């Protein structure tokens, strides 16, 4: 049993070594995808094993997989498969220098797709994605997230979360240039300082446990002796640790690095960071919340998480309406969803926590697929700006279709699973007496809805601002040169969207989810 934990930790390391060793082979970019698939398979196996015979511990208790850890492994694995498969399976077609492909009709004669254009459009592999060190860093990143969710010792969780910052630093900076350098600098400084505050919290937690005998930061032991913890120290420790890890989870007001880093990173990296790294950081907050709730009652954490959650929704609502960059739009949407998770954790109780855990999976799958699609739109249009993307549904239906569906899922339309989880979080909030916060949250969600819907619609079905006649003209004489040859929707994106639709009705998930919620309460 314990061998699975070691396998999941060591195989990505091995694959990282292989990809670094064979750095110039084009197929090294598939090694992270293999690591992700293994992680998903291992996660599902561990869910099954833990369901059969309870938590698995190894390395003298430093590592321990209970139902919650196993669930998180599945989330990390599933999102990583989508982000890496979709993101690495990207053969870049450089933008033809002659024209911008989205608004070419006025400048180009019909049928002018010349031989030179054809050559320029021929897929070439992106040099960054093909490099071995990029693949190696991705594998290490996966290993760090795995370590964060299988660690029982909170100190080790901290080490793993810090390792995720370290492994992603150069991934964020990998595109070179001033912007990505600035994004990487802010990301590493804020991430490192924030997480350092969490370390201070963990230190105080260790001091608080001195009253119950030996100092420890093992999660299981702390939860068992929660009532013996020094209450003043436990309060300060919990607040500092949550504050620190909230920086990494992208919760307002510690979110300022997130839109920069997530919009500057290449597609597979943004997908992983937005889709699952934030959730992994939030998972650590859930663990710490369990201890402080048991030690000093739920009021402290509930207050902190409510403030952070509502602030995150407010920040998103304030900035999506006027947002000009579609990758930043997606990044802000991640802040919104993290805010929702915080509200769910603040509400507490089995329904809220189950909804939070399912929302991590649903949001992760959709968000990583969306970043992959956004990366392809960027390759096609050559611009980050919302205003430069128009009429995408006609020009590239293979990109616009998933983009529209994914946005609908992000906005919480039924039948996507995000609808059920958002309703679950709000209902649980009402049930636990948080009437006003949840009403404010609903109002803020409506503003976010309007903002995101407006931009997505203008990108997919909108008419270019400077060309009021484009649609009538093309209706008379369809300009075939503007439309790329039909391309099929990429398989991982289709899978992610299908999974998000099916998940809401997937009753077999009920068992693992209930077990994961129970594990957070300390049940064996």
């Amino acid at each position, binding site marked *: 049993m314990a061998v699975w934990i070691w396998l999941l930790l060591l195989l990505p390391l091995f694959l990282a070594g292989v990809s670094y060793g064979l750095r110039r082979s084009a197929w090294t970019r598939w090694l992270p995808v293999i690591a992700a698939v293994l992680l998903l398979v291992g996660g599902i196996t561990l869910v099954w094993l833990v369901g059969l015979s309870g938590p698995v511990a190894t390395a003298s208790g430093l590592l321990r997989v209970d139902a919650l850890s196993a669930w998180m492994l599945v989330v990390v694995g599933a999102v990583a498969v989508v982000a890496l498969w979709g993101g690495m399976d990207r053969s870049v077609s450089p933008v033809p220098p002659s024209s911008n492909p989205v608004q070419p009709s006025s400048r180009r004669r019909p049928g002018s797709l010349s031989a030179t254009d054809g050559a320029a459009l021929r897929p070439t592999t992106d040099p960054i994605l093909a490099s071995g060190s990029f693949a190696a860093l991705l594998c290490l990143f996966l290993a760090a997230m795995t370590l964060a969710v299988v660690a029982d010792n909170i100190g080790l969780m901290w080490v793993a979360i810090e*390792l995720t910052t*370290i492994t992603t630093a150069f991934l964020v900076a990998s595109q070179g240039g*001033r*912007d990505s350098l600035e994004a990487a600098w802010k990301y590493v400084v804020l991430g490192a300082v924030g997480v350092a505050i969490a370390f201070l919290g963990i*230190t105080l937690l*260790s001091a608080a446990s001195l009253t119950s005998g030996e100092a420890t930061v093992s999660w299981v032991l702390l939860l068992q002796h929660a009532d013996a913890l020094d209450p003043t120290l436990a309060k300060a420790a919990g607040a500092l640790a949550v504050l620190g890890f909230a920086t990494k989870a992208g919760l307002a007001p510690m979110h300022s690095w997130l839109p920069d880093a997530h919009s500057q990173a290449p597609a597979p990296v943004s997908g992983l960071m937005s889709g699952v790294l934030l959730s992994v950081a939030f998972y650590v907050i859930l663990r710490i919340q369990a201890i402080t709730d048991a030690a000093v009652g739920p009021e402290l954490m509930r207050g902190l998480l409510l403030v952070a959650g509502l602030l995150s929704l407010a920040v998103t609502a304030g*900035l999506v309406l006027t947002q000009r960059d579609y990758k930043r739009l997606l990044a802000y949407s991640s802040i919104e969803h993290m805010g929702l998770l915080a509200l769910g954790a603040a509400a507490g109780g089995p329904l809220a926590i189950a909804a939070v855990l399912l929302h991590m999976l649903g949001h992760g799958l959709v968000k990583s697929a969306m970043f992959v699609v956004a990366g392809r739109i960027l390759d096609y249009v050559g611009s980050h700006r919302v205003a430069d993307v128009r009429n995408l549904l006609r020009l590239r239906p293979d990109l616009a279709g998933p983009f529209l569906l994914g946005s609908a899922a992000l906005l919480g339309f039924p039948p996507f699973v995000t609808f059920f989880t958002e309703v679950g979080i709000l209902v649980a909030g009402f049930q636990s007496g948080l009437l006003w916060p949840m009403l404010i949250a609903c109002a803020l969600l409506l503003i976010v809805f309007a903002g995101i819907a407006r931009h997505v619609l203008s990108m997919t079905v909108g008419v270019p601002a400077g060309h009021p006649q484009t649609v009538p003209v093309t209706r008379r004489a369809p300009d075939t040169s503007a439309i790329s040859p039909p391309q099929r929707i990429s398989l991982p994106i289709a899978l992610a969207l299908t999974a998000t639709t099916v998940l809401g009705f997937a009753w077999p998930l009920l068992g693992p989810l209930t077990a994961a919620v129970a594990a957070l309460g300390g049940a064996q």
Partner: protein
Amino acid sequence: MTSELYPQLIALTTGLLLLTAVLQVWGRSLVRSIGLLAAQGVALAGLVLTVGFHVGEPGALFVAALVLVVKAIVLPWAMLRSARLIGETRERAALVNTAVELIVAAALTMLAYVVTGSLFGIGSDAAAHAVPVGFALVLLGFWQLLIRRSAVTQLIGFLVLDNGIATVSFLTSGGLPLTVELGASLDVLLVVLILGVLVVRMQAVHGHVDISELKELHD
């Protein structure tokens, strides 16, 4: 260890920690600030050794050696190299003048004593008396991060913050398990090395390392 020597050694090492941090806030020379950082590393290693011997921890010698190598030798050396590589040996003008910086530093130190008093109570142990120094270091590190504009000083501020956390950790609970201690040291080392590389790249791309000029990404 005799009973008189222990409080004296604790006072000596923590006093050295606080003194170096305040001198860093005062000064404008990056080279001297990095030198003070190395002195802080030595003081921290001394503190680890003192606490470790007092409670009879067998791994203390190893942890102290680790702290000495990482915080007093490797990190200052790497930072000095980065600073020399980009030719930045003096701090640019900070956002406030030196007098204000020092007054706020004094206020932060007092705040640290107040906060620690309410957290831990008034202990009789020499170690408990010294805990506020750790919190003061954390706040002084933050203060440097806030007001200084050079990317190199930001790094120094981060390390002072980290030294403060390590001080609190060793004084309150004798440190975390060895695996975690090793992992945390490695993490800090890697973060600083990465930031060092980014500083050098920033100099190459932007022609300066003034972080208040980093404002191309905004909404």
